[in-house]
């Protein structure tokens, strides 16, 4: 576990750099994570997906399956990786402040 200061707030991160207290998530934190995950700038397209992930998680208590992300947002896998080069799980979910996906590895 480690801490980073984002806009004056101490934010705890786990080893993988995921936020430990999802409730503390803010757009500032998203911006911070974005840099870590090789996203130059959070565009509207990025935000659409970030918000989608947050909403989905709120509603269902789980992260959506990648296929669903693509379908519901009308993006291809290629486009998704173009937006989030480190991928939907490590990249997009982290930026959206979701708990670390624990699916299969």
């Amino acid at each position, binding site marked *: 576990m480690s801490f980073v200061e984002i806009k004056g707030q101490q934010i705890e991160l786990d080893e993988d750099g995921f936020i*430990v*207290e*999802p*409730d503390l998530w803010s757009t500032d934190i998203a911006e911070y994570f974005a840099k870590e995950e090789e996203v130059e700038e959070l565009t509207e397209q990025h935000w659409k997906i970030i918000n989608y992930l947050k909403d989905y998680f709120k509603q*269902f*208590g*789980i*992260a959506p399956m990648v296929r669903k992300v693509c379908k519901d947002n009308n993006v291809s896998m290629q486009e998704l990786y173009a937006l989030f*080069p480190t991928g939907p799980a490590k990249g997009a979910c982290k930026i959206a402040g979701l*708990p*670390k*996906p*624990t*699916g299969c590895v």
Partner: protein
Amino acid sequence: MARTDFGPPDYKTMLPPVIKRNYGKWLYHEVPQPGVLRHVSETGEELYSVRVASARLVSSEFIRDISDIAEKYCDGFLRFTTRNNVEFLVSDKAKLEPLLKELDEKDYLVGGVGLSISNIVHTQGWIHCKSAVTDASGLTKNIMDTMVDYFTGKKSVPSRCRIAVACCVNMCGACHCSDIAVVGIHRTIPRINHELASKICEIPNTIASCPTGAIRPNPKLKSVEINHEKCMMCGNCTVVCPAIKIMDPENDGVSIWVGGKVSNARSKPMFSRLAIPFIPNNPPFWPEVTDAVKHLVEVWASNARPGERMGEWIGRIGWERFFAIADLPFTDKHLDDFTHANTTFRSTTQFKY
């Protein structure tokens, strides 16, 4: 951006010329001596493969040493088997004896071919897996130390005997279809850190992860509950939710399963089935485990007919006879209680006393 999606090296660049020339043309093979295969081609050419044991978990030094050997005797060509042995591919018969000599001098074990006990297929254990109930490498080392004569051909077996070790019930390998499988198991119920769970638990996935439906949500704590009556201590929920822990050094241990097979040779593939429900973790030697494996191999080897795999032998004599001959207690643990349990109940008056 770095190069991506280029795949593994082209296998064609990794084959010795004799194989390239005789690819798809092999006619038959023989086992001139334990650990050595002689494949003969339609073209009359032949290839000697010399199989040596490996710990699987190896160092760069090992990699370089086998590379040295391959260069000396095999023009640099070698391969690994699906059970993690190393095979030196000798195209020049004259180099066979010198190779075997050097291997012997360097304490490489030659064997694992044909009617033998080949390398154990095993998993990460305490070396690398967070789910590990026991150490697969340590168990493997101990068991094979005991079984080594069956590898080298000094002792003989009626048929192949494939042993597998898995450090948890995920069974990363083919434990569920092995002649003998050693599998790490838990015996106590997971503990939930509700505080943590409320933050990071994907509750629906966690609920779905339970084979027996023992997990229900606890909305008050924003967490989950485990129904003790239903939990079978499989640990699957702990894979899905980091807030659930199941490790319990005092009660964790290993179970032994027998009679599985994968091949379609003669009989159909079979699942391994429970022989010994629990042996405590007793590193570094796990003496009870090695004894049990040795015992099982010996009982089988001295009772089975030539060519009979463990499961084929048991199939012929019946499980009730197996438990008697192997002198193993039959307990409530052996009775299946999962989904297809009733298909394992005996629906005939045919049995041996």
